[in-house]
C-alpha cells in the first residue's frame, strides 16, 4: 500500500508519469534493496558516503556492510538492524526509483517531507506509513474517535488487498449518515455485536473489483458483477465474524443484497472509507449495530 501512496503522490505532483509509476510498482516486487539505500534512508550515512562505499565495493571483494563498518560509517549493530529492513515496501519502492534513475533516496526523502507537511502528519505517523504495515497505515486514514470501526475496516481492506489487488491507496474516511453512489452491495451480520458492511461506487468504479474477484471480465456493473461484489462482502463478513467468534461472540451472516440502481446508501452513523484502485474510486462502508439501506 505504501508504494501506491507514495507513487501516486509523485504522480500527482508531476514528478513521475503514469507509465513510470506502473513500471515502478511492477519492479518493486523484484528489487533487492541495497544496504546503502537503507542506511541513507535511516540517516545513518549520507548519500556521498554510500556512493563512496559502493565505489570501493567495485574494487574490493567485500560486502557493503563490512566496508561501511571498516570505514567507521556504521557499527555491526547498525548493519544487522539495516539488514532486517530489506523487505520493507517503502524502501523497495525507493530502490526501484533509484534503479530506474528517477531519483535517489535523498531526493525521495525530500519529497516525503513535502508530503508530511501537506498531509499534516506527525513524525510518528510518517514512520507508520513507511513501515509498509497495513495495520499501522490504516489508522492514519480513520478519523479520531472512530476506533470502534477499526477492526471491521481492517478486515475489509486486508481482504480486498488479498483477494483483489494489493496496490490500493486510501483517502481519509468520514463518518456520515449517507453516501451518494450509483450501485453497490450490503450485508448484515446479526448477533450480539451486529454490523453492516457495504461496497459501493459510482458508474463503473466497482467493475475491476467484480471482475478480479468473480474471475470474469464484466463490461458493466450489472447484477452479475454486483453478485461478485456480494460474494466478496460475504468473505469479509465471514472473516470478521470468525475473529469475533474467537472472543466468544456468536454472529450470523445474512445473505448479501445488491442493487444496480440506487442513489445513496444510508444509516444512522456509518464510516465511509474511499479506496483508490487502478484509477477507480469506490467505498468501503461500515455501520455498527445498524443495517445499511440502499435507496
Amino acid at each position, binding site marked *: 500500500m505504501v508504494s501506491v501512496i507514495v507513487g501516486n503522490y509523485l504522480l500527482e505532483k508531476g514528478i513521475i508519469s503514469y507509465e513510470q509509476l506502473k513500471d515502478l510498482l511492477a519492479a518493486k516486487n523484484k528489487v533487492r534493496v541495497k544496504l546503502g539505500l537503507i542506511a541513507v534512508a535511516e540517516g545513518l550515512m549520507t548519500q556521498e558516503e554510500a556512493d563512496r562505499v559502493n565505489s570501493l565495493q567495485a574494487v574490493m571483494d567485500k560486502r557493503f556492510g563490512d566496508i561501511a563498518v571498516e570505514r567507521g560509517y556504521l557499527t555491526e549493530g547498525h548493519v544487522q538492524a539495516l539488514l532486517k529492513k530489506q523487505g520493507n515496501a517503502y524502501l523497495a519502492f525507493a530502490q526501484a526509483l533509484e534503479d530506474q534513475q528517477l531519483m535517489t533516496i535523498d531526493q525521495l526523502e525530500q519529497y516525503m517531507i513535502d508530503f508530511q507537511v501537506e498531509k499534516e502528519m506527525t513524525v510518528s505517523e510518517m514512520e507508520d506509513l513507511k513501515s509498509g504495515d497495513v495495520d499501522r497505515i490504516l489508522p492514519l486514514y480513520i478519523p479520531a474517535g472512530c476506533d470502534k470501526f477499526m477492526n471491521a475496516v481492517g478486515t475489509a481492506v486486508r481482504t480486498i488487498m488479498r483477494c483483489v489487488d494489493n496496490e490500493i491507496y486510501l483517502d481519509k474516511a468520514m463518518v456520515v449518515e449517507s453516501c451518494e453512489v450509483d450501485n453497490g452491495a450490503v450485508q448484515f451480520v446479526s448477533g450480539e455485536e451486529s454490523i453492516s458492511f457495504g461496497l459501493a461506487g459510482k458508474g463503473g468504479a466497482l467493475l475491476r473489483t467484480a471482475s478480479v474477484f468473480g474471475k*470474469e471480465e464484466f463490461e458493466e456493473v450489472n447484477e*452479475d458483477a454486483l453478485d461478485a461484489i*456480494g460474494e466478496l462482502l460475504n468473505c469479509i463478513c465471514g472473516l470478521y*465474524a470468525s*475473529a469475533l467468534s474467537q472472543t466468544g461472540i456468536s454472529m450470523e*451472516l445474512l*445473505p448479501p443484497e445488491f442493487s444496480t440502481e440506487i442513489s445513496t446508501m444510508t444509516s444512522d452513523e456509518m464510516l465511509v472509507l474511499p479506496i483508490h484502485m487502478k484509477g477507480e474510486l469506490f467505498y468501503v462502508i461500515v455501520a455498527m449495530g445498524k443495517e445499511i439501506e440502499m435507496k
Partner: protein
Amino acid sequence: MANILIIDDSRTSRKILRGILEDAGHTVAGEGVNGEDGYLKYKEVKPDLVTMDITMPKLDGLEALQLIKKCDESAKVVMITAAGQKEKMIQAIKHGAAEFIAKPYDAEEVKTVIEKVLNS
C-alpha cells in the same frame, strides 16, 4: 469422476466452483439457486454429491440439507461456508453434512475435500 449438484444463491460462487469441479474432471449435473430450488434439483438429478452454501434466501443451506437427508439418508452433502459460521457448522454436522469448504475457494482444498467425501 462424479456428478455433482451445486446449490448456492450466488452466481459468482456457482461459476467459480463449477470451474474447479470441472477442472478436476467432475460433471456438474445441475445448479440450485436457493435451498428450495436445490432440493427440487436434487430429487431430479440424483447427484453423487451436493455442495451446499449455508447462507441463502428462501430455504437456507441447513434447511435444504435436512430435506435432502430426509429423502436420501446416504446423500453426500458438502457445506460451503464463509468463515465465522461456527454455530451453523455444528448444526450441519448434527444433520449429517459430510464436510465443509470455506470461502473464498482454494481450488486444491475443494478438490481434496470432494475426493475425500466421494471415497468415504
